[in-house]
């Protein structure tokens, strides 16, 4: 009994297990259908051929000629596999969006499927195309849309998972100045028309290099959480952090134009399920999508093995250095070029340290930097041109140029070094540079900038004791001045006691005054008056000088006395002649002309000055 039962159950199990094998290829089914059979010209319908069966692979069907329709889209294949109660069933559908070319009735011929000499066929479908209309969107024969009530309320609905933006960094822990490449990818399962960046993150603490992406994003496919998404990279940047620590990259926000279906919200329970985008019931709406935030851990430069000239270059570099000429005359410019090439933060990398001979006049380098972004990496070239003017002849050596950088791939510092360069400087013509830039020969180069050394000796004096501040200093002016004035006054006083001296001293002044007066006499004055004035001036002068009475002064009598005073004979004779000329003129009847008068006056003045000068 027990044994029988076992057998029976075994047979049953075997039977059921074998069913799929037996039925394979037998229950293949093909059907064709459209979503509506009556439409207006200009509208479109969906035509689907569906093959289902319980075999693994479904052969492609032979589709009918669709020459009477515009194919808007298709064939869109979709497959599904199911495993129900141990039986596998597969279905494959081919769908087309078709638009009639003309009005009228059209028949879509049968689709055929050949399987193992068996031919399966679908029914032909008749499509009725109306010449006019098309406004009535619910005129379709589709039973699903019949119950749809006129739209009362439409609403755009977005499933947040239909479209999203993701920021991906190629690394999250990196060295300062090392580049991190961030790719912003747009994932979408709905129709996205365009996008634009609404808010780019503020890249504080970073040096940003933006990568060029094709204007039409390349769309790929990716499965996220079991869902298949279309993916397009829309932005790619390389960031070079300029400081250490935890750095956050803010989200990128973009606006996408999404083709959404409009859904009527009403009492219709089927509305939301059976609304079909192909009924033309769609619209384009903007939607904002935000990426995730990224956190980066930026490390400082390791102290170990850090070269002295390292100042922040990170990457992989190579260096070339060279002179445009190695033989030059003094005061002629040469150009020393250093090229740093490679991958890394070339823009923020420091210039290489160049040490030139002190006899070279050097100018700030002309630096040109260009970058090239390929495959998400930033390559660059930095060209530093140093203009040098040798001032002195001789063999000048430019020390090797050094450039140190940190290689993140090898995790160590590397130093590039050029060979030393020798420049032969010949004595050239001495030319003055404009603006006096020419260094004077033998001018000492100042290397340091320390203050001058202290003085070792001094003469200290009492503070605040300045000799010019007190009355002592003022009296040093006043006392001598007063002494001098006093002495002068004293002298005047004693002079007054001796009238002869006073007379002699005033003699010249009085005589000069008299002659001036004579010289100013108008022609209206008689000649007698004029001659008298000149004669008296000179006579009185002699009388005053000798302290004798002027009246009755005889020239012959005083001649000896006058000559004793040191007067030369000829000077005295000149004076005597003028005096005699005047005595004679006084008694002559005629007048004397103006020119004659001025000549005589001038002569009289001359001789008076000579005599006064010669008088002891």
């Amino acid at each position: 009994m027990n044994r029988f039962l076992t057998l029976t159950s075994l047979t049953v199990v075997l039977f059921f297990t074998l069913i799929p094998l037996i039925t394979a290829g037998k229950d293949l089914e093909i059907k064709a259908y459209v979503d509506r059979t009556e439409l207006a010209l200009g509208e479109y319908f969906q035509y689907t051929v569906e093959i289902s069966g319980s075999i693994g692979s479904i052969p492609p069907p032979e589709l009918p000629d669709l020459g009477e329709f515009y194919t808007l889209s298709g064939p869109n294949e979709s497959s599904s596999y199911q495993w129900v109660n141990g039986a596998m069933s597969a279905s494959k559908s081919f769908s087309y969006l078709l638009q009639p070319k003309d009005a009228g009735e059209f028949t879509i011929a049968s689709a055929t499927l050949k399987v193992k000499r068996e031919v399966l066929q679908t029914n032909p479908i008749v499509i009725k195309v109306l010449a006019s209309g098309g406004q009535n969107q619910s005129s379709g024969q589709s039973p699903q849309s019949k119950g749809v009530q006129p739209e009362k309320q439409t609403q755009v609905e977005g499933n947040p998972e239909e479209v999203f933006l993701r920021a991906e960094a190629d690394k999250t822990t990196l060295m300062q100045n090392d580049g991190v490449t961030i790719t912003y990818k747009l994932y979408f399962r709905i129709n996205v028309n365009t996008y634009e960046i609404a808010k780019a993150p503020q890249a504080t603490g970073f040096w940003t290099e933006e990568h060029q992406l094709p204007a039409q994003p390349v769309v790929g496919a990716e499965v996220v959480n079991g869902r298949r998404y279309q993916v397009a990279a829309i932005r790619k940047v390389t960031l070079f952090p300029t400081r250490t620590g935890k750095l956050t990259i803010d989200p990128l926000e973009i606006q996408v134009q999404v083709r959404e279906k409009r859904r009527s919200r009403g009492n219709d329970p089927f509305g939301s399920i059976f609304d079909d985008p192909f009924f033309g019931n769609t619209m384009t709406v903007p939607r904002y999508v935000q990426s995730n935030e990224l956190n980066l851990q930026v490390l400082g430069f390791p102290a170990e093995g850090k070269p002295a000239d390292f100042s922040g270059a990170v990457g992989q570099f190579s260096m070339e250095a060279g002179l445009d000429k190695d033989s030059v005359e003094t005061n002629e410019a040469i150009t020393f070029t250093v090229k740093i090439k490679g991958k890394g933060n070339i823009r923020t990398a420091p210039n290489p340290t160049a040490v030139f001979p002190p006899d070279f006049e050097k100018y700030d380098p002309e630096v040109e930097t260009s970058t090239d972004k390929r495959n998400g990496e930033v390559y660059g070239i930095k060209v530093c041109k140093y203009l040098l003017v040798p001032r002195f002849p001789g063999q000048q050596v430019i020390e090797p140029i050094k450039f140190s950088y940190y290689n993140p791939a090898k995790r160590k510092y590397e130093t590039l070094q050029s060979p030393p360069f020798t420049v032969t400087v010949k004595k050239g013509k001495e030319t003055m540079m404009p603006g006096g830039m020419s260094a004077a020969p033998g001018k000492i180069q100042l290397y340091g900038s320390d203050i001058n050394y202290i003085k070792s000796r001094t003469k200290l004096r009492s503070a605040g004791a300045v000799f010019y501040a007190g009355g002592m200093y003022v009296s040093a002016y006043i006392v001598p001045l007063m002494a001098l004035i006093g002495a002068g006054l004293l002298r005047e006083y004693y002079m007054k006691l001796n009238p002869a001296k006073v007379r002699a001293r005033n003699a010249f002044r009085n005589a000069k005054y008299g002659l001036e007066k004579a010289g100013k006499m108008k022609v209206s004055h008689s000649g007698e008056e004029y001659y008298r004035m000149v004669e008296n001036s000179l006579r009185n002068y002699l009388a005053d000088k000798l302290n004798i009475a002027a009246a009755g002064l005889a020239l012959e009598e005083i001649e000896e006395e006058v000559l004793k005073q040191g007067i030369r004979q000829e000077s005295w004779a000149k004076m005597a002649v003028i005096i005699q000329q005047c005595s004679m003129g006084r008694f002559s009847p005629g007048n004397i002309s103006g020119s004659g008068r001025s000549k005589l006056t001038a002569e009289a003045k001359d001789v008076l000055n000579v005599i006064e000068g010669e008088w002891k």
Partner: protein
Amino acid sequence: MRAIPMFFRTFLFILFLPLISRGNGIQEDEFDKGNRLYRDNDFSGAIAAYQGILQAGYESGELHYNLGNAYFKNGNLGLAIVHFEKGRKSMPRDMDLLSNLEMARLRVADQVESPRLAVWEAVDYARDYFTMESLAAASLGMFLIFLILAGIYYFLPKSRWKRLTFWAAAPIFILFIFLFSIFQWRLWQDKNIREGVILVEKVDVLSAPDERGQILFALHEGVKARLGQVLPPYVEIILPDGKKGWILGETIIEI
């Protein structure tokens, strides 16, 4: 008449007595001690030694110069500038001092530029080319020489020499007027224009002598400014470019 030059000679000797007189030996030893400490890089020790001499009432250009150097090396930029400026009054043409003063000024965070014509710079240079002592002595000397020449001219009997003295006295008189004016100008400046140097690292300059005054700008150690009114504890400062304000008196030291 020969008694007059004799009288002047005696007079001049009395006049310059303070210049010739020296500080006593103890102070000179202190100076050497300060120099030794400076050489051993003990700048605060050197400062103490030099300051001791100043406290005792003695000074010299070299002392201020060395003290300025010590302050500079010790990091007291403001005091260094004060003593360089003080030393400059005694030795205005000392190249070491002028270059150190310039070096110190370059370290000052605020470089106050005054818009001035080159002519005025030249006038300032000429004015400060001499010490007050030499200006005072030179102007007095010129005056006395002029008096002597005038005396000779007046008292000498008529001769060739008499004429010569007249032509010699004229340029000397012009020179005397020039030196005397500069001297008087400097005296006026010393009395009326007071200058100070900021001693603290940073000081806020207020619009009024009141802690509620608005902060106009900030000055840093070593800035030289003219001092205006004093309303304790505040003092008014005037910068060469004309900016004015009030700061706490304790933040500035007068040169």
